[in-house]
């Protein structure tokens, strides 16, 4: 019984972290997605993490994704690392040359993929049409799953319209597949779609925890320097306890995410529930971190000039993406308690 990264894992994560520390500073984050950085990430293997070795990838699983996505969240890197993994999982279910081409391009870092899955979506509202697709604004390939059909849309062929969102780094865009000419959609097994959703939830969970840790570090530093009433605000109990609760939430979410990756990689019967639990804990922890870190920063945290804002925006978007905490909590509830009770039918 062991629950934690191996030495190899640690090493890989350290490499990616070091790369991003150098190449993805807050100033870089403000400049948004960078193809150059994507290529550098590809060199470490990050973009082909779940692409099979046959197609030039590393052929790894959710465990590796967790380590890498956490590094991405910590650096607030705009590049779609989780989407690359999900895209690889979807394309692996497709028996066609065009899948192989894109898998190779993903692993090589010559293509960027965006993905739209029917995840987290029983709720409507917020206007007509479908939810915009993250990273589609600069993707080379958009994968749109519609029921069991996978639309493989090269950006050149699809009708893609950028949309403003709370996090400018997300590259949100509307993707209109009705205008798509070219090749017909591919039929996927339901299992492939389901697992892709779990993988996205696990990756996003790890990313959120990385972001939460980054915000906590920023805020601890600020609270140790900023003085009011003659002493550092971090010496006040109210501030201490806010931030202690953030650390507790992050620390307890972490093993839940590690376990979900293990269950995914080993096809355990609990894999779906474990992925859902991971997203619940990570979304809640990151939301708490965002809220408390902004409160401790005060007005300065409310401005564009403060680096905190980069992570705040990432968390606001990502905590709801891939299914929010309520969606996944309901999934765990259905598994644990059976379907929600209903009034008797007439």
């Amino acid at each position, binding site marked *: 019984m062991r629950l934690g990264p191996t030495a190899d894992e640690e090493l890989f994560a350290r490499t990616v972290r070091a790369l991003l520390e150098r190449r993805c500073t807050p100033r870089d984050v403000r400049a948004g997605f960078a193809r150059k950085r994507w290529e550098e990430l590809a060199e470490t293997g990050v973009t082909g993490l779940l692409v099979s070795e046959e197609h030039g990838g590393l052929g790894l699983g959710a465990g590796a994704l967790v380590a890498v996505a956490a590094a991405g969240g910590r650096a607030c890197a705009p590049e779609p690392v989780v989407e690359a993994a999900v895209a690889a999982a979807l394309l692996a279910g497709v028996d066609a040359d065009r899948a192989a081409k894109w898998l190779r391009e993903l692993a090589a870092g010559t293509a960027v993929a965006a993905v739209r899955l029917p995840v987290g979506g029983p709720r409507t509202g917020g206007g007509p049409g479908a939810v915009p697709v993250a990273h589609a604004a600069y993707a080379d390939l958009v994968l749109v799953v519609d029921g069991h059909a996978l639309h493989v849309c090269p950006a050149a062929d699809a009708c893609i319209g950028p949309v403003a969102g709370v996090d400018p780094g997300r590259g949100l865009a509307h993707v209109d597949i009705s205008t798509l000419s070219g090749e017909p959609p591919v039929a996927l097994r339901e299992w492939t779609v389901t697992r892709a959703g779990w993988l996205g939830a696990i990756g996003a969970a790890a990313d959120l925890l990385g972001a939460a840790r980054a915000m906590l570090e920023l805020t601890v530093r600020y609270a140790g320097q900023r003085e009011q009433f003659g002493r550092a605000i971090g010496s006040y109990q109210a501030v201490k306890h806010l931030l202690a609760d953030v650390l507790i939430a992050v620390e307890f979410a972490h093993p839940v995410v590690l376990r979900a990756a293990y269950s995914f990689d080993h096809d355990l019967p609990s894999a779906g529930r474990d992925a859902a639990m991971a997203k619940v804990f990570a979304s809640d922890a990151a939301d708490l971190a965002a809220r408390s870190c902004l409160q401790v920063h005060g007005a300065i945290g409310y401005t564009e000039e403060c680096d905190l804002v980069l992570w705040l925006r990432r968390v606001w978007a990502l905590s709801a993406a891939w299914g929010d905490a309520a969606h996944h909590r*309901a999934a765990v509830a259905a598994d644990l308690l059976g379907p929600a009770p209903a009034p008797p039918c007439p």
Partner: protein
Amino acid sequence: MLAQVTDLIFSATEEDFRREIRDWLARHVPRDPLPSMDTPDGFRAHQRWERQLYDARWAVVSWPEGYGGRGASLVEWLIFEEEYWRSGAPGRVSQNGIFLFAPAVFAHGTEEQRRRILPPMAAGDEIWVQGWSEPGAGSDLAALRSRAVRDERRGGWRLTGQKTWSSRGTYGHRMFGLFRTDARAERQHGLTYFMIDLAADGVTVRPIRQLDGEPGFAEVFLEDVFVPDTDVLGEPGQGWSVAMSTTGDERGLHLRSPGRFLATADQLVRLYGQVSVGTAAGTGTPDAYRDAVVDAWMRAEAYRLYTFRTVTRLGDGQSIGPESSVNKVFWSELDLNLHATAQRLLGPWAETGGRWLDGYLFSLAGPIYAGTNEIQRNVIAERLLGLPKEPKGKASRGLGGGGGAGG
């Protein structure tokens, strides 16, 4: 034997008042929302709307008639606010002036100042900007260091220093704020309350972009800026007590009328209706949001009733002191709660923007500005409950950051 506890019925006069404003709003509120008041176009559009309100004498209903108001009672003011926000009317670009600054002008200004300052403020012709916080003085306002030296020859003062978190600072016209006029005095002593023309020589305004990307507030740099004696409010050296009447108002009843939250709560209930249609027809996801929506709505109702209770107490001749801290914590958390619940309902759509997202970002500032909620809780504990202060007198209050990022 006993009279009734309560009478929640409004009088005929009050009901007439409600009908009048409701009718007027139905005819005049712009069908499409105005652009953000923190953009150049939006700022001007909001000024025009204030002018329209003023011309119909709805801009400042609780002010005396002589200054453009209607001399409305507190209850009528609450009715006005309920109807105003329910109608979907635009936010008030003049609010820092009419709610934060005007009370101080009424209490401490000369008649000449009132005549000169208040009507253009109410008409939206002059937009006022607050100049409280400084980089080293946020929650700890008394730590401010911007100073003014006497210019006897010209009959006024020369101001130097830096103010920050000045809402509307980017496009506004005039600023009110505190400056140190006695260099030897410390903390709340030796401060004077000034009014500053932001177009004067020596003033530099640097817009600060907020979370939503718009320059909702600004830093204001002052370099030897001349302010005549006629633009000092109250006595020189008495600025702290003049300002306290203003912040009391800011945190208290006036700025945050229940009307705003009631309107948001009703919109939340409508949003829930739209969303739950999708749920029932969809995958049968259990309705995790039902309690959150009803709780947020009930809290808005409770805030309304609490305000009625406060108005009753004021009518009975009592005054509001540290109780305003109870108020501030409650409304700021209520506002955040309303918008956070809406964001949760919107799920994956939440990040795509719109007025719920704007409202959410704005509501996040509530627990920070006008005295952080941590400081308000200290005030509640020490002044209402009577718990002992922290050992060092100076260090008796909590969390910093920048206060003063008002609306």
